[in-house]
Each structure stands twice: as structure tokens, then as C-alpha cells.
């Protein structure tokens, strides 16, 4: 079982590496922000699996904090002007 959980974590982390391409590429600020949110939800899943894998229940609290506070950055992002973000 431990092997399977480890493989799932590795798989999700590789997913994150692929998602980085969207942060780098854009083209709009909204795309980059979207990619960051996908990062957030994948990290939450990784933390939850790690809580089981490493037998550290406290990691579920870390996942809870991330998922609870994920929308705050988006609210701040909403206030940015749109348009040319290559500066």
C-alpha cells in the first residue's frame, strides 16, 4: 500500500511540473492565475496522501489551510488591471 501511495504522490507532482508550462506561457494573467490554482488543488491532494503515507495526521490541517485560503490570492488578483502583463 505504501508503494501505491508513493507512486500517486509522484504522479501528481509530475502533473505539477507539466502545469508550470502554463504559468510560464500565459498568455494572459488569468491563465497564469488559473495554473496557480490548479497547483493549489493538486498540492492539497498530495498533502492528504502524504498524511496517510508518512502517518502524519497534522498534514491534513496543512491541506485544510491551503484549501480554505486558496481564494484569497484570487480575490487580490481580481483587483489587478487587465491587459499587457509582460512587464
Amino acid at each position, binding site marked *: 500500500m505504501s508503494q501505491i501511495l508513493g507512486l500517486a504522490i509522484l504522479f501528481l507532482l509530475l502533473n505539477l511540473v507539466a502545469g*508550470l508550462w502554463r504559468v510560464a506561457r500565459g498568455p494572459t494573467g488569468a491563465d497564469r492565475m488559473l495554473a496557480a490554482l490548479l497547483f493549489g488543488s493538486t498540492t492539497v491532494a498530495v498533502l492528504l496522501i502524504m498524511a496517510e503515507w508518512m502517518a502524519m495526521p497534522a498534514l491534513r490541517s496543512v491541506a485544510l489551510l*491551503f484549501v*480554505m485560503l486558496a481564494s*484569497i490570492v484570487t480575490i487580490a*488578483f*481580481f483587483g489587478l488591471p487587465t491587459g499587457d502583463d509582460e512587464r
Partner: protein
Amino acid sequence: MVISVLIDFLLAAGMVVLALQVVSDKAVLRSIILFVVFGLVMALAWTRLHAPDLALAEAAIGAGVTGALMMMAWRRLLIINPERPADTPLGRSRLAVPVALLSAVLVATIGLTALDVESPTHTAGQVAAEEMTATGLGNPVTGVLLLFRNLDTLLEMAVLLIALLGARAISPPASPEEAAVVETGTPLVGALLAILVPLSILIATHLLLAGTHEPGGAFQAGAVLAAGGVALILSARLKPGERPGIVMQLGVTVGLIAFVAIGVGIMALGETLLVLPGTWAVYLIETAMMVSIGLTLALLFAGAPALVGRRG
């Protein structure tokens, strides 16, 4: 155990690449978003190092405060000077490569030396771990912060207060229009706040109470409270005020006051300075610290000496 090595390698390599990209990217927004991502990877790295207390702090501060803080700073720069918001020097300094190489050599030397050093048989950590059972605290981090090294913690509270005073001294107060980004009528945001704010108070209280026997504590709890405050400031429910009332003044200082009052007051009973008399004192000081930390971080975010509720 190949899998765990691969996971750790991915995290370590990811952190280095992200850190380089954050400081070298020319597009400011991309740097900010990569910094948010860096915070996520950092929390995972702390987790792999078996430091859930630090992962909690990273989650609360990174997701709740710093990401939004940088977005707001960038927004303010764009408002002040829409044409050239960030005057970044073009091209890199001639010293960059030599300095980087020297730093790499230094880190490599320290790392290789550390490999040869035998781990000491008697460390302060072991003494602290042996004494921990006598304190009645299950979480060694809280034990060290509040009992064994509490002078450091006390001074950290003082530093936080001085940081707030310093920020107030050098920057003009933010106008209420600059602090909020979402009009009060925006759909869904009200519903989000109705869940997020009560939940942040609940979770902060949980982290505070759990902090004595499992990961958590005043710093994490205060950061979660501050995150709730940041959400309220961003959505115009809390506005920057001009004059701090007695509640605000007491709020930012209560952590320091409670710590000093108990730490010094104990001397009247013939004890040594800062020897806390029991678990109740730990709870009391941590609660006061949580309030001060949460309020101070929220005030630093708002860039104002006080916060007032929306009228009407």
C-alpha cells in the same frame, strides 16, 4: 524507497528552479504567481523534513497573506505609475556570476564539511526532549517556544510590534479605495466570506488549543486570523481607519503585555524571570499572542493604523 528519493529530488529541484525564476523573471505578475507556487512546494518540502509546524505556518502565511500582499503592492505600483510601474535595471551586474560561483563554493564547502562531522552525542535538543514530559506539553515546538527559549519568543513579539510602528512611520496611510479590490455587490464573494471568516476563527482557535499537544500554536493561529482579516479588507468589509482606538492599541500590544506581566510578575513569588508557572500561563500567553499577531499582520496588510467596519 526509490519512490521517496524521487519525490524528494523533484521537490528539491523544483524549489531551486522556482526560486531562480522568481527573482530573474522580467514579468512581475509571473514572478508573483511563481512565488505563490514556490510557497506550495516549500510546504511540501517542510512536510518531507517532518516539520509540520513549519508547513502549517507556510500554508497560513503564504496562502493567506503574502501572495495577496504582493498582488496589492503590484496593483499600487500600476496605479501610481501606469507607464513604468517597475523600474527594473536592465541587464545583470558584472558581479552576478562571480558572486554566484563564490556562494556555490561556500555552500558546497559547508555541506561537505558537515558530512564529515560526527553528530554530537549530547545536544540541547536531547535535554529539551527529556525535560518535555515534565512540562505537560505534548508538542515540543510549543515547549521550546514558550518555556525553554521564551525570551526569543518575547523578543519576536517586540520585533513584530516595532515592524508595525516602522511601517506606520515611513508610509502614508492607504486610502480606503486602494485597500479594497472587490465591490461589495460582486456575486459569490459575500457567500465565500460568510463561510471563510467564521471558519478562520474556528480553525485559529483549534490550532491554538491543539498547539500544546500537536502541531499548531499562536503563530499559525494568528496568521489564519490575519488571513480572514485580509479577505475582509480585500472585499471592502473592513476599511483602513485613520486613528487607532483603544481596542486597536490594546489588540496589537496584548501579546507583549501578557507575556511581560506573567514573566515579570512571577518574580514576586520568588521565581526566576520568565519561568512560566504552568500550562494555564502558556494558554493565556498564546491566546494574547494570537490576537496581537493576527491584528498586526492585518494592519500591515492594510497599510493603515486602524481598521473600521463598513458603515451602512
